[in-house]
């Protein structure tokens, strides 16, 4: 089935369009909007973006594969990125990752069997002074201890239903206004 943006997201795109000198410059912003809605960058999303911006699907695909944040396959309903880079590892990031792998029963790069969580590692997330840290969907959780993880996962499960109902995939940059 062809992909279409919701009217709300289409309006955000149309507001942005005249602010750039070329259509192509909207590749990343538009991919973000689509991914927010779809949860990943499906082949239909690539077609949609190419058509809207009047570029080839190969051009769009080239961008998708270059950037870490674009998911090329479906993720769990929640995505966890544990920062693995130096300041975080010095302060115990590996312990956090191992504890999560145990609790979730999956390894880094995998999704839990129930489709609830995808566990990933991230490179430095600009929170080095609050290490170790992780990003859960679009929120940072800093100064972590392994003891806090159960509460975090529980909170994510609880909030997931309202998020899914409102049509938000794990990372929503633009559609959700700042609270």
């Amino acid at each position, binding site marked *: 089935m062809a992909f279409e943006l919701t009217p709300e997201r289409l309006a955000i795109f149309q507001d942005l369009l005249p602010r750039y*000198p*070329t259509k192509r410059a909207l590749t*990343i912003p538009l991919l*973000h909007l689509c991914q927010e809605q779809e949860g990943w960058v499906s082949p239909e999303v690539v077609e949609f973006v190419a058509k809207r911006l009047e570029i080839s699907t190969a051009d769009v695909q080239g*961008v998708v594969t270059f*950037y*870490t*944040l674009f998911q090329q396959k479906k993720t769990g309903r929640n995505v966890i990125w544990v920062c693995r880079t130096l300041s975080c590892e010095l302060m115990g990031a590996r312990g956090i990752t191992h504890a999560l792998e145990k609790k979730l029963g999956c390894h880094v790069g995998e999704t839990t069997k129930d489709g609830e969580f995808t566990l990933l590692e991230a490179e430095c997330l*600009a929170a080095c*002074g609050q290490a170790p840290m992780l990003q859960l969907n679009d929120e940072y959780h800093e100064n972590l201890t392994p003891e806090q993880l159960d509460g975090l996962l529980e909170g994510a499960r609880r909030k997931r239903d309202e998020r899914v109902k409102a049509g938000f995939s794990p990372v929503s940059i633009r559609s959700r206004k700042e609270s």
Partner: protein
Amino acid sequence: MAAENPNILTKNYGVSESWKIENYERQGGYQSLRKALEMGPEKIRDEVKAANIRGRGGAGFPAGVKWSFLKPNPEKPTYIAVNADEGEPGTFKDRTLMEKDPHRCIEGFIIAAYALDVHTVFCYVRGELVLAIRRLEQAVREARAKGYLGETVLGRPFKLDIVIHPGAGAYICGEETSLLNSLEGLRGEPRLKPPFPAVVGAFGAPTIVNNLETLATVPSVIEFGGDSFSKMSRLHHLKDGGVRLYGVSGHVKRPGVYEAPVGITLNELIFDYAGGVRGDRKIKAIVPGGSSTPIVRPEDKVSAADEKHILHPWHGKSHLDVPMGVDTMRALGTMLGTCCAIVMDDTTSMVRVAENLMLFYAHESCGQCTPCREGCSWMARLCRKFAAGTATMNDLEVLNDVANNIMGNTICALGDGAAMPMLGILKLFRHEFEAAVREGRAPKEIAA
């Protein structure tokens, strides 16, 4: 010595809901813009030059001089591209400005745009920083509603738009020409220079690329005057002016972002600001300014007997007693970089540190230049071998060779940024790599 806090860049950090425009205005916000509009573009540029702001993005180029290189093209508009891609490991300062004082950033962008006759500013923020993006977009909406930008700027016939552009997770997009390609909707691969962005930048048009903190400093330059602002630095005489944000992370008691004059020492940053090393342990090594800067050690002493040497005043002192400035750190054989230090205590395994960092560069190399693409993964694989205890003495030579063969052989500085810290660690901690070979193992954990 007590930690000195100029409280200029961070003065609103403690204000409740500091990101809202009414609170920013109550703190005197947007008064610098009014003053700047009275001064006119040329005078603003003079003040920025006099302020001796060395670019806060890592390379330390003087902002005022960069602005003077801008070559307007009658056929094209002129742009400002703000670099808020903050991705250099250990660096977490720009994020605090965007989240806690987005209007200071916006005010800086408007003044810079007015000074350079720019009508569109693109602010490229790394995509992971969702809160920062939302706060900046909210700030743009508020500023527009109040007439600070839009069809006019405070009623003057000057049209201005500020576009907050999200990245999508790629360290390389912090490199200025890669950022421009990414902004244009391409893969974030760096461009050959020249032409420099000030001549051919975004969308083929002349573009000034500045770090976010560099521009967020501009309202204070206007408020205090360029010369007075520059003199707040301890290195004013070296044309390294003003105050700036310092970050400190790793094994310290109070990690965080601190504001201080340019030119405090690493010892001051670690002990006076960050409260010292955890458990009062000894410092083994420090990454002084983001992961691409070679490490320094407390036991190394400055050797600058020649009175003309820039480091002569600190001859015989520890490297940690040298003021942190662009030229002083370079003279020490490292770099000031992003001014965000990572502190490692004496329980740290430098083999594991190298492994961690080289994995980062292997992941982030854009793949365009062979020495960097192949070299970074090669260095990572070799570091893995040392960490696993399967490396040979010959691997040590290979590691050294690979690093040396990246240096200077790539389009952008990412490759050098990987090779320099690798060579630095090998030079100062070769014995840990040799021990890993001899004993057939390295410490299991990076640190206690």
